[in-house]
Protein backbone atom coordinates (compact mmCIF):
# COMPACT_ATOMS: atom_id res chain seq x y z
CA UNK A 1 0.00 0.00 0.00
CA UNK A 2 1.14 3.56 -0.70
CA UNK A 3 2.02 5.56 2.36
CA UNK A 4 3.00 9.00 3.59
CA UNK A 5 5.87 10.40 1.50
CA UNK A 6 5.13 8.23 -1.56
CA UNK A 7 4.26 9.80 -4.88
CA UNK A 8 0.60 9.33 -5.81
CA UNK A 9 0.28 7.59 -9.19
CA UNK A 10 -1.81 9.23 -11.92
CA UNK A 11 -5.14 7.70 -12.92
CA UNK A 12 -8.25 8.41 -14.91
CA UNK A 13 -11.74 7.96 -13.51
CA UNK A 14 -15.33 8.15 -14.63
CA UNK A 15 -17.67 10.50 -12.80
CA UNK A 16 -21.19 9.39 -11.95
CA UNK A 17 -22.54 11.57 -14.76
CA UNK A 18 -20.48 9.47 -17.20
CA UNK A 19 -17.75 12.03 -17.97
CA UNK A 20 -14.09 11.05 -17.70
CA UNK A 21 -11.47 12.97 -15.71
CA UNK A 22 -7.79 12.58 -15.05
CA UNK A 23 -5.77 12.87 -11.90
CA UNK A 24 -2.31 14.09 -12.81
CA UNK A 25 -0.24 14.70 -9.73
CA UNK A 26 2.08 17.23 -11.41
CA UNK A 27 -0.82 19.27 -12.73
CA UNK A 28 -2.63 19.29 -9.41
CA UNK A 29 -3.20 22.90 -8.32
CA UNK A 30 -4.74 22.08 -4.93
CA UNK A 31 -4.31 19.23 -2.47
CA UNK A 32 -6.56 16.23 -3.12
CA UNK A 33 -8.19 14.12 -0.44
CA UNK A 34 -8.67 10.69 -1.99
CA UNK A 35 -11.01 8.34 -0.12
CA UNK A 36 -11.54 4.65 -0.88
CA UNK A 37 -14.96 3.55 0.33
CA UNK A 38 -17.27 0.54 0.32
CA UNK A 39 -21.02 0.86 0.48
CA UNK A 40 -21.58 -1.73 3.21
CA UNK A 41 -18.70 -0.85 5.53
CA UNK A 42 -19.83 0.57 8.91
CA UNK A 43 -16.54 2.44 9.36
CA UNK A 44 -16.97 4.09 5.95
CA UNK A 45 -20.44 5.20 6.96
CA UNK A 46 -19.08 6.47 10.27
CA UNK A 47 -16.54 8.57 8.33
CA UNK A 48 -19.02 10.13 5.90
CA UNK A 49 -20.31 12.98 8.11
CA UNK A 50 -16.71 14.02 8.79
CA UNK A 51 -15.80 13.95 5.08
CA UNK A 52 -18.93 16.02 4.43
CA UNK A 53 -17.72 18.53 6.97
CA UNK A 54 -14.23 18.67 5.46
CA UNK A 55 -15.78 19.25 2.05
CA UNK A 56 -18.22 21.85 3.34
CA UNK A 57 -15.77 23.81 5.46
CA UNK A 58 -12.48 23.42 3.62
CA UNK A 59 -13.73 22.68 0.08
CA UNK A 60 -12.23 25.91 -1.22
CA UNK A 61 -8.78 24.76 -0.28
CA UNK A 62 -8.83 21.20 -1.52
CA UNK A 63 -10.41 18.71 -3.90
CA UNK A 64 -12.14 15.66 -2.52
CA UNK A 65 -12.67 12.49 -4.50
CA UNK A 66 -14.20 9.36 -3.05
CA UNK A 67 -13.77 6.14 -4.99
CA UNK A 68 -16.45 3.58 -4.37
CA UNK A 69 -15.32 -0.01 -4.72
CA UNK A 70 -18.91 -1.10 -5.38
CA UNK A 71 -21.21 -0.93 -8.42
CA UNK A 72 -23.20 2.12 -9.34
CA UNK A 73 -26.58 1.14 -7.84
CA UNK A 74 -25.43 0.60 -4.25
CA UNK A 75 -23.10 3.58 -4.54
CA UNK A 76 -25.95 5.87 -5.56
CA UNK A 77 -28.03 4.45 -2.75
CA UNK A 78 -25.26 5.18 -0.24
CA UNK A 79 -24.87 8.73 -1.54
CA UNK A 80 -28.55 9.33 -1.08
CA UNK A 81 -29.04 7.56 2.23
CA UNK A 82 -25.92 8.78 3.97
CA UNK A 83 -26.27 12.26 2.47
CA UNK A 84 -22.85 12.35 0.81
CA UNK A 85 -22.06 15.89 -0.35
CA UNK A 86 -18.58 15.40 -1.84
CA UNK A 87 -17.83 13.97 -5.33
CA UNK A 88 -17.91 10.18 -5.65
CA UNK A 89 -16.75 8.04 -8.56
CA UNK A 90 -16.93 4.33 -9.15
CA UNK A 91 -13.63 2.50 -9.21
CA UNK A 92 -14.79 0.07 -11.86
CA UNK A 93 -12.92 -3.25 -11.82
CA UNK A 94 -10.98 -1.85 -8.85
CA UNK A 95 -8.29 -0.49 -11.18
CA UNK A 96 -7.35 2.52 -9.01
CA UNK A 97 -7.68 0.43 -5.87
CA UNK A 98 -5.09 -2.00 -7.20
CA UNK A 99 -2.84 0.92 -8.13
CA UNK A 100 -2.94 2.39 -4.61
CA UNK A 101 -3.40 -0.95 -2.84
CA UNK A 102 -5.14 0.17 0.40
CA UNK A 103 -5.35 -2.65 2.95
CA UNK A 104 -8.70 -1.56 4.27
CA UNK A 105 -11.53 0.87 3.77
CA UNK A 106 -11.99 3.65 4.44
CA UNK A 107 -8.52 4.70 3.37
CA UNK A 108 -7.95 8.44 3.18
CA UNK A 109 -4.92 9.86 1.41
CA UNK A 110 -4.16 13.56 1.47
CA UNK A 111 -2.11 14.25 -1.65
CA UNK A 112 -0.21 17.54 -1.73
CA UNK A 113 0.24 19.72 -4.79
CA UNK A 114 2.98 18.00 -6.75
CA UNK A 115 1.74 14.55 -5.83
CA UNK A 116 3.34 13.55 -2.51
CA UNK A 117 1.13 11.79 0.02
CA UNK A 118 1.03 13.93 3.17
CA UNK A 119 -1.30 11.88 5.35
CA UNK A 120 -2.74 8.41 5.10
CA UNK A 121 -5.46 6.93 7.28
CA UNK A 122 -6.77 3.35 7.29
CA UNK A 123 -10.07 3.02 9.13
CA UNK A 124 -11.43 5.78 11.32
CA UNK A 125 -9.35 7.94 13.62
CA UNK A 126 -10.46 11.31 14.97
CA UNK A 127 -6.91 12.51 15.68
CA UNK A 128 -5.75 11.84 12.12
CA UNK A 129 -8.90 13.46 10.69
CA UNK A 130 -8.09 16.55 12.75
CA UNK A 131 -4.46 16.44 11.58
CA UNK A 132 -5.65 16.29 7.96
CA UNK A 133 -8.01 19.23 8.53
CA UNK A 134 -5.25 21.17 10.27
CA UNK A 135 -2.83 20.56 7.40
CA UNK A 136 -5.39 21.78 4.87
CA UNK A 137 -6.47 24.78 6.93
CA UNK A 138 -2.91 25.69 7.86
CA UNK A 139 -4.05 26.26 11.46
CA UNK A 140 -5.49 24.02 14.18
CA UNK A 141 -8.84 22.83 12.91
CA UNK A 142 -11.17 20.38 14.65
CA UNK A 143 -13.28 18.35 12.27
CA UNK A 144 -13.97 15.47 14.67
CA UNK A 145 -15.00 16.49 18.16
CA UNK A 146 -13.88 14.14 20.92
CA UNK A 147 -17.33 14.01 22.46
CA UNK A 148 -19.71 13.71 19.54
CA UNK A 149 -20.70 10.17 20.44
CA UNK A 150 -18.51 8.44 17.86
CA UNK A 151 -15.57 6.32 19.00
CA UNK A 152 -12.07 7.82 18.78
CA UNK A 153 -10.94 5.06 16.44
CA UNK A 154 -12.54 2.20 14.58
CA UNK A 155 -11.02 -0.43 12.34
CA UNK A 156 -12.16 -0.51 8.74
CA UNK A 157 -13.19 -3.42 6.51
CA UNK A 158 -10.96 -5.32 4.11
CA UNK A 159 -10.50 -3.50 0.81
CA UNK A 160 -12.53 -5.21 -1.95
CA UNK A 161 -9.46 -6.19 -3.97
CA UNK A 162 -8.15 -8.19 -1.03
CA UNK A 163 -11.43 -9.98 -0.29
CA UNK A 164 -11.65 -13.63 -1.28
CA UNK A 165 -15.22 -13.10 -2.50
CA UNK A 166 -16.72 -9.71 -3.28
CA UNK A 167 -20.05 -9.10 -1.68
CA UNK A 168 -21.15 -5.56 -2.26
CA UNK A 169 -24.79 -5.67 -1.25
CA UNK A 170 -25.93 -2.81 0.93
CA UNK A 171 -28.61 -3.48 3.50
CA UNK A 172 -31.13 -1.13 2.02
CA UNK A 173 -33.12 -0.59 5.20
CA UNK A 174 -30.37 0.12 7.68
CA UNK A 175 -28.70 3.46 7.45
CA UNK A 176 -27.01 3.91 10.77
CA UNK A 177 -25.07 7.07 10.12
CA UNK A 178 -27.75 9.30 8.76
CA UNK A 179 -27.77 12.29 11.09
CA UNK A 180 -31.38 13.23 10.43
CA UNK A 181 -34.44 11.12 10.92
CA UNK A 182 -38.17 11.75 10.47
CA UNK A 183 -40.24 13.78 12.93
CA UNK A 184 -42.13 11.87 15.58
CA UNK A 185 -45.68 10.96 14.67
CA UNK A 186 -48.59 12.62 16.48
CA UNK A 187 -51.20 10.75 18.47
CA UNK A 188 -54.59 12.46 18.62
CA UNK A 189 -56.55 11.32 21.64
CA UNK A 190 -60.28 10.88 21.50
CA UNK A 191 -62.11 12.94 24.14
CA UNK A 192 -63.19 9.79 25.92
CA UNK A 193 -59.58 8.81 26.63
CA UNK A 194 -57.83 9.90 29.82
CA UNK A 195 -54.35 10.98 28.63
CA UNK A 196 -52.73 9.77 31.86
CA UNK A 197 -54.25 6.32 31.46
CA UNK A 198 -53.29 6.27 27.78
CA UNK A 199 -49.66 7.07 28.58
CA UNK A 200 -49.33 4.18 31.03
CA UNK A 201 -48.10 2.15 28.04
CA UNK A 202 -45.03 4.37 27.68
CA UNK A 203 -41.98 3.36 29.63
CA UNK A 204 -41.81 2.51 33.32
CA UNK A 205 -44.96 1.35 35.09
CA UNK A 206 -45.42 4.63 37.01
CA UNK A 207 -47.66 7.37 35.63
CA UNK A 208 -45.98 9.85 33.30
CA UNK A 209 -46.82 13.39 32.22
CA UNK A 210 -48.50 13.14 28.79
CA UNK A 211 -46.05 14.42 26.14
CA UNK A 212 -48.43 16.87 24.50
CA UNK A 213 -47.22 18.94 21.56
CA UNK A 214 -47.17 22.08 23.74
CA UNK A 215 -45.05 20.50 26.43
CA UNK A 216 -42.60 18.93 23.98
CA UNK A 217 -42.22 22.19 22.08
CA UNK A 218 -41.48 24.06 25.29
CA UNK A 219 -38.85 21.45 26.09
CA UNK A 220 -37.35 21.98 22.63
CA UNK A 221 -37.04 25.73 23.13
CA UNK A 222 -34.14 25.02 25.47
CA UNK A 223 -31.99 23.50 22.79
CA UNK A 224 -30.76 24.86 19.50
CA UNK A 225 -30.71 21.46 17.85
CA UNK A 226 -33.08 20.53 15.07
CA UNK A 227 -35.94 18.33 16.37
CA UNK A 228 -35.20 15.56 13.87
CA UNK A 229 -31.45 15.47 14.51
CA UNK A 230 -30.39 12.01 15.61
CA UNK A 231 -28.37 12.18 18.83
CA UNK A 232 -27.68 8.44 18.95
CA UNK A 233 -28.94 5.06 17.81
CA UNK A 234 -29.93 3.43 21.06
CA UNK A 235 -29.04 -0.25 21.51
CA UNK A 236 -30.19 -2.98 21.54
CA UNK A 237 -32.82 -2.08 18.90
CA UNK A 238 -30.77 0.85 17.57
CA UNK A 239 -33.78 3.16 17.51
CA UNK A 240 -33.01 6.72 16.43
CA UNK A 241 -33.07 9.01 19.47
CA UNK A 242 -33.97 12.30 17.83
CA UNK A 243 -33.95 15.51 19.82
CA UNK A 244 -37.74 15.55 19.63
CA UNK A 245 -38.14 11.98 20.91
CA UNK A 246 -35.71 12.68 23.75
CA UNK A 247 -37.73 15.80 24.60
CA UNK A 248 -40.98 13.77 24.62
CA UNK A 249 -39.44 11.29 27.05
CA UNK A 250 -38.08 14.16 29.17
CA UNK A 251 -41.60 15.57 29.43
CA UNK A 252 -42.93 12.18 30.50
CA UNK A 253 -40.24 11.84 33.17
CA UNK A 254 -41.15 15.22 34.64
CA UNK A 255 -37.96 17.06 33.63
CA UNK A 256 -37.67 20.82 33.60
CA UNK A 257 -36.67 22.35 30.26
CA UNK A 258 -33.22 23.25 31.57
CA UNK A 259 -32.30 19.57 31.90
CA UNK A 260 -32.35 19.04 28.12
CA UNK A 261 -28.68 19.98 27.69
CA UNK A 262 -27.71 17.43 30.31
CA UNK A 263 -30.03 14.74 28.96
CA UNK A 264 -28.85 15.15 25.35
CA UNK A 265 -25.24 14.77 26.51
CA UNK A 266 -26.20 11.80 28.66
CA UNK A 267 -27.87 9.99 25.74
CA UNK A 268 -24.72 10.55 23.68
CA UNK A 269 -22.48 9.29 26.47
CA UNK A 270 -24.48 6.17 27.24
CA UNK A 271 -24.46 5.24 23.53
CA UNK A 272 -20.67 5.67 23.29
CA UNK A 273 -19.28 2.36 21.98
CA UNK A 274 -16.95 2.08 24.96
CA UNK A 275 -19.90 1.96 27.33
CA UNK A 276 -21.37 -0.99 25.40
CA UNK A 277 -25.02 -0.27 26.14
CA UNK A 278 -25.98 -3.24 23.97
CA UNK A 279 -24.45 -5.62 26.48
CA UNK A 280 -25.57 -3.68 29.56
CA UNK A 281 -29.20 -3.69 28.42
CA UNK A 282 -29.27 -7.32 27.33
CA UNK A 283 -27.45 -8.92 30.26
CA UNK A 284 -29.16 -10.97 32.96
CA UNK A 285 -26.79 -9.29 35.47
CA UNK A 286 -27.85 -6.48 37.84
CA UNK A 287 -26.15 -3.68 35.90
CA UNK A 288 -27.89 -0.37 35.24
CA UNK A 289 -26.34 2.89 34.08
CA UNK A 290 -25.33 4.90 37.14
CA UNK A 291 -25.17 8.60 36.22
CA UNK A 292 -22.73 10.82 38.13
CA UNK A 293 -22.96 14.58 37.68
CA UNK A 294 -20.02 16.93 38.27
CA UNK A 295 -19.27 20.64 38.03
CA UNK A 296 -21.29 23.86 38.25
CA UNK A 297 -24.34 22.30 36.58
CA UNK A 298 -25.09 20.61 39.91
CA UNK A 299 -25.86 23.90 41.59
CA UNK A 300 -27.28 25.57 38.48
CA UNK A 301 -29.95 22.91 38.02
CA UNK A 302 -30.27 21.61 41.58
CA UNK A 303 -28.71 18.14 41.50
CA UNK A 304 -28.62 16.60 44.96
CA UNK A 305 -25.17 15.55 46.15
CA UNK A 306 -25.66 15.43 49.90
CA UNK A 307 -27.86 13.38 52.20
CA UNK A 308 -30.15 10.83 50.57
CA UNK A 309 -28.21 11.21 47.34
CA UNK A 310 -29.34 7.79 46.03
CA UNK A 311 -32.97 8.34 47.06
CA UNK A 312 -36.00 10.27 45.97
CA UNK A 313 -34.46 13.53 47.16
CA UNK A 314 -34.41 15.94 44.24
CA UNK A 315 -36.48 16.44 41.14
CA UNK A 316 -33.39 17.00 39.01
CA UNK A 317 -31.69 13.70 39.91
CA UNK A 318 -34.89 11.66 39.81
CA UNK A 319 -36.23 13.04 36.55
CA UNK A 320 -32.91 12.98 34.67
CA UNK A 321 -32.32 9.36 35.66
CA UNK A 322 -35.90 8.50 34.81
CA UNK A 323 -35.77 10.27 31.45
CA UNK A 324 -32.66 8.28 30.53
CA UNK A 325 -34.39 5.03 31.45
CA UNK A 326 -37.47 6.00 29.41
CA UNK A 327 -35.26 6.75 26.39
CA UNK A 328 -33.46 3.42 26.80
CA UNK A 329 -36.65 1.46 27.05
CA UNK A 330 -38.91 3.37 24.63
CA UNK A 331 -36.34 4.09 21.91
CA UNK A 332 -33.67 1.47 22.64
CA UNK A 333 -36.24 -1.26 23.17
CA UNK A 334 -34.80 -2.95 26.28
CA UNK A 335 -37.94 -3.55 28.27
CA UNK A 336 -38.40 -5.92 31.17
CA UNK A 337 -40.13 -9.04 29.89
CA UNK A 338 -38.74 -8.37 26.41
CA UNK A 339 -35.07 -8.00 25.62
CA UNK A 340 -34.24 -6.98 29.19
CA UNK A 341 -34.37 -10.28 31.04
CA UNK A 342 -32.24 -9.31 34.04
CA UNK A 343 -32.59 -12.02 36.68
CA UNK A 344 -33.18 -9.70 39.63
CA UNK A 345 -33.01 -6.30 37.94
CA UNK A 346 -32.01 -3.13 39.72
CA UNK A 347 -34.05 -0.45 41.50
CA UNK A 348 -31.81 1.99 39.62
CA UNK A 349 -33.74 1.20 36.46
CA UNK A 350 -36.34 3.68 37.70
CA UNK A 351 -33.65 6.32 38.13
CA UNK A 352 -29.99 6.09 39.13
CA UNK A 353 -28.41 9.52 39.23
CA UNK A 354 -26.20 11.19 41.82
CA UNK A 355 -24.22 14.40 42.02
CA UNK A 356 -20.72 14.31 43.46
CA UNK A 357 -20.46 16.29 46.70
CA UNK A 358 -17.52 18.34 45.45
CA UNK A 359 -17.90 20.84 48.30
CA UNK A 360 -17.15 18.09 50.83
CA UNK A 361 -14.58 16.35 48.67
CA UNK A 362 -11.02 17.06 49.87
CA UNK A 363 -9.65 15.65 46.59
CA UNK A 364 -10.14 16.18 42.86
CA UNK A 365 -13.68 15.51 41.70
CA UNK A 366 -14.31 12.63 39.30
CA UNK A 367 -14.46 14.71 36.11
CA UNK A 368 -11.19 16.49 36.90
CA UNK A 369 -9.55 13.06 37.11
CA UNK A 370 -10.87 12.43 33.58
CA UNK A 371 -9.14 15.56 32.31
CA UNK A 372 -11.85 18.20 32.61
CA UNK A 373 -11.56 21.49 34.44
CA UNK A 374 -13.21 21.92 37.81
CA UNK A 375 -15.34 24.76 36.39
CA UNK A 376 -16.57 22.56 33.53
CA UNK A 377 -19.63 20.37 34.01
CA UNK A 378 -19.54 16.73 33.05
CA UNK A 379 -21.58 13.60 33.20
CA UNK A 380 -20.26 10.08 33.80
CA UNK A 381 -21.97 6.75 33.19
CA UNK A 382 -20.96 3.51 34.86
CA UNK A 383 -22.64 0.11 34.48
CA UNK A 384 -23.23 -0.61 38.15
CA UNK A 385 -24.98 -2.90 40.58
CA UNK A 386 -26.97 -1.46 43.45
CA UNK A 387 -24.97 0.27 46.20
CA UNK A 388 -23.72 -1.98 48.98
CA UNK A 389 -23.38 -0.08 52.25
CA UNK A 390 -20.28 0.04 54.46
CA UNK A 391 -20.90 1.31 57.97
CA UNK A 392 -17.73 2.22 59.92
CA UNK A 393 -18.28 4.49 62.88
CA UNK A 394 -15.57 3.19 65.20
CA UNK A 395 -12.44 3.66 63.09
CA UNK A 396 -10.56 6.80 64.04
CA UNK A 397 -7.87 6.48 61.41
CA UNK A 398 -7.80 6.33 57.64
CA UNK A 399 -6.40 2.82 57.22
CA UNK A 400 -9.16 1.33 59.37
CA UNK A 401 -11.81 3.09 57.31
CA UNK A 402 -10.26 1.73 54.14
CA UNK A 403 -9.97 -1.77 55.60
CA UNK A 404 -13.74 -1.77 56.17
CA UNK A 405 -14.36 -0.64 52.62
CA UNK A 406 -11.94 -3.21 51.17
CA UNK A 407 -13.91 -6.03 52.80
CA UNK A 408 -17.03 -4.91 51.01
CA UNK A 409 -15.07 -4.53 47.77
CA UNK A 410 -13.93 -8.16 48.07
CA UNK A 411 -17.53 -9.31 47.63
CA UNK A 412 -18.45 -7.48 44.43
CA UNK A 413 -19.56 -9.64 41.48
CA UNK A 414 -18.88 -12.76 43.49
CA UNK A 415 -16.42 -13.31 46.35
CA UNK A 416 -13.93 -15.51 44.45
CA UNK A 417 -14.12 -13.62 41.15
CA UNK A 418 -11.09 -11.38 40.72
CA UNK A 419 -9.81 -9.33 37.77
CA UNK A 420 -12.06 -8.21 34.89
CA UNK A 421 -14.27 -6.18 37.23
CA UNK A 422 -14.30 -2.65 38.56
CA UNK A 423 -16.07 -0.84 41.37
CA UNK A 424 -17.04 2.65 42.43
CA UNK A 425 -16.46 3.60 46.04
CA UNK A 426 -18.94 6.26 47.07
CA UNK A 427 -17.17 7.79 50.03
CA UNK A 428 -19.25 9.70 52.56
CA UNK A 429 -17.90 13.11 53.63
CA UNK A 430 -17.03 11.95 57.16
CA UNK A 431 -14.91 9.06 55.91
CA UNK A 432 -13.26 11.34 53.34
CA UNK A 433 -12.45 13.82 56.12
CA UNK A 434 -10.79 11.15 58.26
CA UNK A 435 -8.67 10.01 55.32
CA UNK A 436 -7.71 13.52 54.33
CA UNK A 437 -6.74 14.34 57.94
CA UNK A 438 -4.45 11.31 57.88
CA UNK A 439 -2.72 12.58 54.76
CA UNK A 440 -4.30 10.25 52.19
CA UNK A 441 -4.31 11.68 48.67
CA UNK A 442 -6.91 10.25 46.29
CA UNK A 443 -4.29 8.08 44.64
CA UNK A 444 -3.19 6.79 48.07
CA UNK A 445 -6.77 5.76 48.83
CA UNK A 446 -7.04 3.89 45.56
CA UNK A 447 -3.68 2.18 46.02
CA UNK A 448 -4.46 1.20 49.61
CA UNK A 449 -7.78 -0.32 48.55
CA UNK A 450 -6.12 -2.09 45.64
CA UNK A 451 -3.37 -3.57 47.80
CA UNK A 452 -5.68 -4.54 50.65
CA UNK A 453 -8.61 -6.02 48.76
CA UNK A 454 -7.92 -9.68 48.30
CA UNK A 455 -9.42 -13.11 48.72
CA UNK A 456 -7.39 -15.58 50.83
CA UNK A 457 -6.07 -18.35 48.58
CA UNK A 458 -7.27 -20.93 51.09
CA UNK A 459 -10.82 -20.02 50.10
CA UNK A 460 -10.06 -21.37 46.63
CA UNK A 461 -9.30 -24.83 47.99
CA UNK A 462 -11.99 -27.44 47.82
CA UNK A 463 -15.08 -27.04 45.73
CA UNK A 464 -14.82 -25.21 42.42
CA UNK A 465 -17.08 -22.32 41.71
CA UNK A 466 -17.33 -19.06 39.84
CA UNK A 467 -13.88 -17.49 39.84
CA UNK A 468 -11.86 -20.60 40.68
CA UNK A 469 -11.03 -21.44 37.05
CA UNK A 470 -9.22 -18.22 36.22
CA UNK A 471 -6.69 -18.06 39.04
CA UNK A 472 -3.84 -18.17 36.49
CA UNK A 473 -4.55 -14.54 35.61
CA UNK A 474 -5.01 -13.36 39.20
CA UNK A 475 -2.26 -11.40 40.96
CA UNK A 476 -1.06 -12.63 44.33
CA UNK A 477 -0.13 -10.59 47.38
CA UNK A 478 0.28 -11.00 51.11
CA UNK A 479 -2.43 -9.15 52.98
CA UNK A 480 -2.27 -9.10 56.80
CA UNK A 481 0.15 -12.02 56.68
CA UNK A 482 -2.07 -14.15 54.48
CA UNK A 483 -1.55 -15.17 50.83
CA UNK A 484 -4.37 -13.72 48.80
CA UNK A 485 -5.48 -13.15 45.22
CA UNK A 486 -5.90 -9.45 44.59
CA UNK A 487 -9.49 -8.59 43.73
CA UNK A 488 -8.60 -6.05 41.07
CA UNK A 489 -6.04 -6.01 38.28
CA UNK A 490 -5.02 -2.40 38.80
CA UNK A 491 -5.73 0.50 41.20
CA UNK A 492 -7.55 2.30 38.35
CA UNK A 493 -10.27 -0.36 38.53
CA UNK A 494 -11.40 1.35 41.73
CA UNK A 495 -13.23 4.61 41.03
CA UNK A 496 -13.69 7.09 43.83
CA UNK A 497 -16.52 9.58 44.33
CA UNK A 498 -17.46 11.62 47.40
CA UNK A 499 -21.20 11.94 47.96
CA UNK A 500 -23.81 11.95 50.69
CA UNK A 501 -24.65 13.89 53.80
CA UNK A 502 -22.19 15.26 56.31
CA UNK A 503 -23.63 13.24 59.19
CA UNK A 504 -23.10 9.50 59.32
CA UNK A 505 -20.13 7.32 58.54
CA UNK A 506 -21.77 5.29 55.81
CA UNK A 507 -19.97 4.79 52.51
CA UNK A 508 -20.96 2.42 49.70
CA UNK A 509 -19.36 0.25 47.06
CA UNK A 510 -20.93 -0.38 43.67
CA UNK A 511 -19.72 -3.34 41.64
CA UNK A 512 -19.44 -3.15 37.87
CA UNK A 513 -20.67 -5.31 35.06
CA UNK A 514 -17.93 -7.00 32.95
CA UNK A 515 -15.30 -4.28 32.71
CA UNK A 516 -12.71 -3.25 30.15
CA UNK A 517 -12.80 -3.13 26.34
CA UNK A 518 -14.73 -6.41 26.12
CA UNK A 519 -17.29 -5.28 28.67
CA UNK A 520 -18.39 -1.80 29.62
CA UNK A 521 -16.04 1.10 30.24
CA UNK A 522 -16.95 4.16 32.29
CA UNK A 523 -17.27 7.23 30.07
CA UNK A 524 -17.33 10.93 30.97
CA UNK A 525 -18.73 13.61 28.65
CA UNK A 526 -18.62 17.37 29.09
CA UNK A 527 -21.99 19.11 29.41
CA UNK A 528 -22.24 22.16 27.15
CA UNK A 529 -23.47 25.47 28.58
CA UNK A 530 -26.26 25.27 26.01
CA UNK A 531 -27.20 22.91 23.22
Amino acid sequence: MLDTGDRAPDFSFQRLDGTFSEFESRAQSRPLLLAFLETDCPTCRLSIPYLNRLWRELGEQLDVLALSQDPEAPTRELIEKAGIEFPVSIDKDLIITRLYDPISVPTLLLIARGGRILHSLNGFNKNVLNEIATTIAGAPFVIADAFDGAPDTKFGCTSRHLEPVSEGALDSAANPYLKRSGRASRIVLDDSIDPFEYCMQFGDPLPVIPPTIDRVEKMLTKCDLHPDEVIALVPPNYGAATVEKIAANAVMAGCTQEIMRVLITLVRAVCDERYNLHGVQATTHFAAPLVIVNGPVRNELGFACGSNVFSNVARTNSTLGRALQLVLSNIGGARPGGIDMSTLGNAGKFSYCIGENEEENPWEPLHVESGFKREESAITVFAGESPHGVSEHKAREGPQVLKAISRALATVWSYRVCAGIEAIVVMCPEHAKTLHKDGFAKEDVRRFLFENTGIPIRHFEGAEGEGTQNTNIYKQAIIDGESCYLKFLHPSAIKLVVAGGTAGKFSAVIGSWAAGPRGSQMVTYPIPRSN
Partner: protein
Amino acid sequence: MQLRKEGEMPITLVNPMDETPHAKQEAARRLANLFGKTVGLLDISKPGGSIFLNQLERSLKQRYGVVRVVRITKPTFTRRAPDEVIEELLRSRCDAVIEALAD
Protein backbone atom coordinates in the same frame (compact mmCIF):
# COMPACT_ATOMS: atom_id res chain seq x y z
CA MET B 1 -63.74 13.12 31.90
CA GLN B 2 -64.29 16.74 31.22
CA LEU B 3 -65.17 17.35 27.61
CA ARG B 4 -63.16 19.95 25.77
CA LYS B 5 -64.85 23.19 24.90
CA GLU B 6 -66.00 23.91 21.39
CA GLY B 7 -63.16 25.10 19.17
CA GLU B 8 -60.54 23.53 21.41
CA MET B 9 -58.12 21.09 19.80
CA PRO B 10 -58.18 17.49 20.97
CA ILE B 11 -55.21 16.45 23.10
CA THR B 12 -52.37 15.52 20.77
CA LEU B 13 -49.26 13.67 21.91
CA VAL B 14 -45.80 13.48 20.40
CA ASN B 15 -45.09 9.78 19.97
CA PRO B 16 -42.27 9.02 22.42
CA MET B 17 -41.67 5.48 21.15
CA ASP B 18 -39.16 4.24 18.57
CA GLU B 19 -40.39 4.82 15.03
CA THR B 20 -37.15 4.03 13.21
CA PRO B 21 -37.90 1.94 10.13
CA HIS B 22 -36.26 -1.42 10.71
CA ALA B 23 -35.63 -3.99 8.00
CA LYS B 24 -38.15 -6.82 8.07
CA GLN B 25 -36.40 -10.16 8.05
CA GLU B 26 -38.12 -13.32 6.93
CA ALA B 27 -37.28 -16.33 9.05
CA ALA B 28 -35.08 -18.81 7.19
CA ARG B 29 -36.76 -21.82 5.62
CA ARG B 30 -36.90 -24.73 8.05
CA LEU B 31 -35.14 -28.03 7.28
CA ALA B 32 -37.25 -31.18 7.05
CA ASN B 33 -34.49 -33.19 8.70
CA LEU B 34 -30.80 -32.89 9.51
CA PHE B 35 -29.56 -35.96 7.64
CA GLY B 36 -26.49 -35.19 5.55
CA LYS B 37 -26.57 -31.56 6.48
CA THR B 38 -23.89 -29.12 7.66
CA VAL B 39 -24.71 -27.38 10.93
CA GLY B 40 -22.89 -24.35 12.33
CA LEU B 41 -22.56 -24.02 16.09
CA LEU B 42 -21.95 -20.45 17.18
CA ASP B 43 -20.49 -20.31 20.67
CA ILE B 44 -21.06 -16.88 22.20
CA SER B 45 -18.00 -17.56 24.41
CA LYS B 46 -19.59 -17.91 27.83
CA PRO B 47 -17.52 -20.13 30.12
CA GLY B 48 -19.68 -23.28 29.87
CA GLY B 49 -20.49 -22.99 26.17
CA SER B 50 -18.00 -25.54 24.87
CA ILE B 51 -19.23 -28.28 27.22
CA PHE B 52 -22.77 -27.86 26.00
CA LEU B 53 -21.82 -27.52 22.35
CA ASN B 54 -19.56 -30.61 22.46
CA GLN B 55 -22.54 -32.62 23.64
CA LEU B 56 -24.75 -31.04 21.02
CA GLU B 57 -22.22 -31.82 18.27
CA ARG B 58 -22.11 -35.48 19.30
CA SER B 59 -25.90 -35.69 19.29
CA LEU B 60 -26.23 -34.00 15.92
CA LYS B 61 -23.80 -36.44 14.32
CA GLN B 62 -24.80 -39.65 16.08
CA ARG B 63 -28.56 -39.25 16.37
CA TYR B 64 -29.47 -36.99 13.47
CA GLY B 65 -26.94 -37.89 10.76
CA VAL B 66 -25.39 -34.44 10.46
CA VAL B 67 -22.27 -34.87 8.31
CA ARG B 68 -20.36 -31.75 9.20
CA VAL B 69 -20.38 -29.42 12.18
CA VAL B 70 -18.73 -26.02 11.89
CA ARG B 71 -17.67 -24.50 15.20
CA ILE B 72 -17.28 -20.74 15.41
CA THR B 73 -16.80 -18.63 18.53
CA LYS B 74 -17.67 -14.99 19.09
CA PRO B 75 -14.75 -12.99 20.54
CA THR B 76 -16.95 -11.92 23.48
CA PHE B 77 -20.49 -12.59 24.63
CA THR B 78 -20.88 -8.96 25.71
CA ARG B 79 -21.11 -7.58 22.19
CA ARG B 80 -22.81 -8.35 18.92
CA ALA B 81 -21.10 -10.84 16.64
CA PRO B 82 -18.69 -8.85 14.47
CA ASP B 83 -19.06 -9.01 10.68
CA GLU B 84 -16.08 -11.38 10.39
CA VAL B 85 -17.90 -14.02 12.45
CA ILE B 86 -21.06 -13.74 10.37
CA GLU B 87 -19.03 -13.86 7.15
CA GLU B 88 -17.15 -16.91 8.37
CA LEU B 89 -20.49 -18.63 9.00
CA LEU B 90 -21.73 -17.66 5.55
CA ARG B 91 -18.57 -18.94 3.91
CA SER B 92 -18.84 -22.26 5.66
CA ARG B 93 -22.07 -22.99 3.76
CA CYS B 94 -24.09 -24.23 6.70
CA ASP B 95 -27.62 -25.53 6.20
CA ALA B 96 -28.51 -24.38 9.70
CA VAL B 97 -26.86 -22.52 12.55
CA ILE B 98 -27.43 -22.96 16.26
CA GLU B 99 -26.33 -20.10 18.49
CA ALA B 100 -25.69 -21.28 21.98
CA LEU B 101 -24.58 -20.21 25.38
CA ALA B 102 -24.12 -21.91 28.67
CA ASP B 103 -22.98 -20.58 32.00
